[in-house]
């Protein structure tokens, strides 16, 4: 049983300069955190590749431009794959697809999960029960068998993959948003608005949505990480779109072309490293945002560092007076 340390006692009646609250809640902690900024840099790099990839690749990335499994050289920085195509070109092309699938699937999950969660949390009662049972049902479905079944039934296309990933991962978001919505709904200012005569749509749009959106954004970033990873293993299992290049398909092809036997590590490892970097980056950014939004994750009071005892000579110099 220990006291909650807040760092500094509140100073009651002192107004401070005007500052909007809107996105500072999640932007500021990310900007302040060094590892988060590195993660942002990594993500930005890959997004850049995805967006401007066409300008960097000359012609068809799958075209045979060298010998099969040529090791990295000055001409081909990361060597060539089993078809003689440049690994660098392939990775750049793959970035576009992998990231696109990741972002789209995460967006679908976020929209479904967010809607289900907010409606469930706000209305409670029967709506809540029905939606949550549905969520539980989806939660229980094993993802890999489901993916295999859907791919087998509906064919292998990029869009199918996006949809599959989207409908698997929304459940986590739904639960999170439901909990958050329930807690916001109980806050006094929401009850006050209701007592004033505000209708449900006004309460949700103007009072609840602004409070839960930051958490939704943080959660979506994490979802991107999941989605990209999911795309990779789906494609690796051979269920991806044969017509497109993604990092997962690069790994798949590498195995199909016996890269390991040929000691062509440059055909297998770089795509994996790319996936890992993007997933890591998204995870770090998402977690930084979530940590900032969830005060219970603060661990200041568990710190090993202690308060300092100063000798009279060490007392802080007088600080210049500020106009109060």
């Amino acid at each position, binding site marked *: 049983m220990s006291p909650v340390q807040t760092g500094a006692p509140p100073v009651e009646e002192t*107004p*401070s300069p005007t500052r909007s*609250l*809107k996105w500072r809640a999640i932007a500021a902690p990310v900007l302040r955190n060094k590892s988060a900024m590195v993660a942002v840099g990594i993500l930005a790099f890959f997004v850049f590749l995805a967006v401007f990839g066409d300008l960097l690749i000359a012609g068809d990335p799958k075209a045979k431009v060298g010998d099969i499994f040529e090791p990295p050289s000055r001409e081909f920085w990361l060597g060539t794959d089993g078809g003689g195509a440049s690994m660098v070109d392939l990775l750049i092309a793959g970035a576009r697809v992998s990231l696109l699938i990741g972002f789209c699937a995460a967006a679908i999950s976020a929209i479904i999960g967010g809607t289900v969660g907010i409606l469930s949390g706000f209305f409670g009662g029967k709506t809540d029960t029905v939606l949550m049972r549905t969520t539980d049902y989806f939660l229980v479905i094993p993802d890999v068998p489901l993916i295999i079944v859907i791919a087998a039934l509906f064919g292998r296309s990029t869009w199918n993959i996006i949809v599959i990933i989207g409908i698997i991962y929304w459940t986590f978001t739904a639960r999170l948003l439901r909990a958050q919505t329930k807690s916001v709904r109980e806050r006094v*200012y*929401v009850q006050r608005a209701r007592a*004033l005569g*505000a209708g449900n749509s006004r309460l949700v749009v103007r009072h609840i949505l602004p409070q839960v959106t930051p958490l939704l954004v943080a959660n979506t970033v994490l979802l991107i990480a999941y989605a990209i990873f999911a795309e990779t293993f789906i494609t690796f299992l051979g269920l991806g779109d044969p017509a497109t290049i993604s990092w997962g398909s690069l790994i798949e092809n590498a195995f199909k072309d016996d890269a390991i036997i040929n000691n062509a590590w440059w055909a297998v490892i770089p795509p994996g490293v790319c996936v890992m970097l993007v997933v890591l980056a998204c995870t770090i950014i998402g977690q930084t945002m979530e940590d900032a939004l969830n005060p219970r994750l603060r661990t200041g009071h568990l710190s090993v560092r202690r308060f300092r005892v100063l000798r009279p000579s060490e007392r802080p110099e007088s600080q210049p007076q500020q106009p109060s």
Partner: protein
Amino acid sequence: MTAPAANGRPLLQVDDLVVRYRIPRGLSGSILRRPQQFVHAVSGVSLHVARGEMVALVGESGCGKTTTAQAILRLVRAEAGNVSFDGVDVTGLPQNDLRALRRRMQIIYQDPYESLDPRFRVSTTVAEPLVIHGIGSRAERREAVTRALEQVGLAPAELFADRFPHELSGGQRQRVAIAASLVLGPELLVADEPVSMLDVSVRAGILGILDELRDQGLAVLMITHDLSTAARFADRICVMYLGRIVEEGPARRVIEDPRHPYTKALLSVVPRRDPRHRVDVQILRGETPNPISVPTGCRFHPRCPIAVEACRATDPELRTPAGERDHRAACILA
């Protein structure tokens, strides 16, 4: 502000209000047909508030005072009883008419740090009621906001209108909440512990605003556990215990000559400012029983210092003791 009622009828009249909550029995309870238990939050409360009058509803936690206020405003469902506002029966009112009624009855909450949406500027919060009810043009709303802010002492209004709640102190936030309630021109204000979370030095300011509003003709129902505040500001006091009003009357009479043993005990333990103050404190043992299992007979008899045998059998009504007018207590020994 509206003019006082032409006839002497009180603005708010509550009769025999009952609010109780079902305690879920669970599957096994239903199968085994266990008796349905209720939380008897409010068990027959009657009170009235006139225009230009401040009535304090006083009691400890769990006595049902907040639930009573919520039932009056139709924020919780009443099981039985009657609430009429300006002669109109509120209890059975359909939703549409309720909205119109909400304009005339407003509520201020206890926690100034939670009452305001942290993402709304002060002007947005104060204008919100007008927006909800579709009143006035943008310019008219801005004027109404300015007037309301000045009425609660946040002047010059321009200084405060663009601020966010986190830039205001607790006292200032509570003033904003009051301003937001006033902007629709209500006739009844329910204040639920309006100052209990504020520093002592700012309480008088807030209570002063309510005092002034009352003088201007607003009817105020103040929920509080602080008898000292009730004594100083209220015209009448109703003391609640376990869902019932056990004593009510003019504030001065109830404070100076309490007739119900609970009121007497309560008054004796309220700390006074003067360290030399000596009074026989009557500290009741134990705590208020929970509203699920209410004692039979007089609700208070298990803790009552003067209970007699008859108290276990009779559930006393509010009666006027001899020599009193308009001051009633629910005690057979009053």
